[in-house]
């Protein structure tokens, strides 16, 4: 059920009520059971995120390369906070736990794409690019 939820979310953008109903029907459980499972997993979202979901890791290995400053920079630049999206729905932000890129820290993930050795300048360019990207 977990991959089904994630792949469905990739298509719809978030786990909507309709999606829960549909998955419950296909798996043969109640919508409540689907909801019970999905609330456990941090990658599954009940609310729409931005088209580009920017996930900044601030866990220990990234923190040692000043990832907390990158996080503050991104919040400031976009005017949004943790799990919030810009008004046009283009970009959302999330401070995430270790994404498994510790030796190439600090690391940022945009949707499923990894960005390694992120500097302040690189983050600026990345966010500017995402603002314009279709």
């Amino acid at each position, binding site marked *: 059920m977990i991959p089904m939820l994630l792949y469905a979310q990739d298509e719809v953008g978030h786990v909507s009520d309709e999606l829960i109903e549909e998955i419950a029907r296909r798996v043969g459980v109640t919508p409540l059971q689907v909801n019970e*499972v999905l609330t456990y997993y941090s990658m599954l979202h009940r609310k729409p995120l931005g088209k580009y979901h920017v996930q900044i890791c601030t866990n220990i290995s990234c923190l*040692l390369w000043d990832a907390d400053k990158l996080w503050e920079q991104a919040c400031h630049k976009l005017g949004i906070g943790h799990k919030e999206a810009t008004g046009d729905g283009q970009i959302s932000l999330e401070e995430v736990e270790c994404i498994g890129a510790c030796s190439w820290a600090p690391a940022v*993930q945009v949707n499923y794409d990894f960005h390694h050795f992120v500097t302040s300048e690189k983050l600026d360019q990345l966010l500017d690019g995402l603002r314009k990207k279709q």
Partner: protein
Amino acid sequence: MLYNEPSPLETRVLSRRFGMPNSASIDTYLATDGYKAFLKARGMKPEEIIEEVKISNLRGRGGAGFPTGMKWSFVPRNSPKPKYIVVNADESEPGTCKDRLLMEYDPHQLIEGVLIAALSVDAHAGWIYIRGEYRYLIEIMDKALNEAYHKGWLGKNIQGTGFDFDLYTHSGAGAYECGEESALLESLEGKRGIPRIRPPFPAVVGAFQCPTILNNVETYCAVPAIIRDGGKAFADLGVPKAGGTKLTCLTGHVNKPGVYELTLGFPVMKMINEVGGGVRNGKKLKAFIPGGSSCPILTGEECQDATMDYDSMAARKSMLGSGGVVVMDEDTCMVKAALRIMRFYAHESCGWCIPCREGTTWLRKILTRFHEGQGTRSDIDLIGDLSKNMLGRTFCPLGDAAALPTISIVEKFRQEFEDHLNGRPCPFEHAGHMVTV
């Protein structure tokens, strides 16, 4: 392209195909002795395979370090139930990024390791549970599985040997806890990742209530070399009670962070100074985490004669863990480090056991206020006491994983906690505000 330059001090057994052109393709794999170990194992009795793995002194690479051959021998082969093989590719331990490379550069080595494990217990199906964030790796693994099916290395009657095996990928969806073996099995079964009480262990009652071998990616990846070159050759690479090599992820304040394959027993200071190019900016080594944030922290002095193996770390009351080395220089605020580590465990605690759920949350709150300069003297002992009260009181090791580094930081760097009380909220930086998730 490799993520980092290899080091001449590496011993490349598991990573020997890293950097080869098309290293992930089955053609490259077959051209470089690939799947030969499977054919050799097919000619061996199951107990001979397990014996060879025992001789190799291979210990689980996920963090616990349990002897792999012994784990496999616990599977009741005469059970009427089907047996399963599960790969733990939920790599989430902070500081660890090695399984990623093993799957990205050499997915067939993992498949072959799984096949040999399957032969040893007569299993015919398995899953690779990959963390959801590693979507590109799921795609690489799926491609490798398709190649293997297409060329007859998976499916019915593999290479005419009469052995059948099906292997699937399964995505996680963001949960550190699902790297714990029993929580992983719950998640695989489509449930919340809540740990199971043990015994029974997965070897007897695992996936879908059936006997299951469950190991880390790196553990399976070591198996083809063990069968191909013999368990003794692998054992001889390491130290007496732990054979082979370990993919070590050098992270934090080193000049050349990266993933390096080093023999077990490799000296810590040589690793930092020669493999990792020394501490960044010529600074002094202050603290060291040997294998992921769950391990008790070592001071720079404790590292001087330490080696990267299970016994050396145990003698220093720490653990080899998952190979996620975190190096901290003299300018690191240890209160901030303790807080960041605790925030992680508070976020990832599944909430099933009260000591862990409440303990991590309260420790996060206390460390947050302490770091902001709002702490009291009694908080220092409270942090230690709360941590000690979590030890051994939870279903799974997450509670211990949160407590152990915290206890060690408070004990070894107490002075820094005192400094925070003495009008210096954070001695190493200003604006030490941290967003609390």
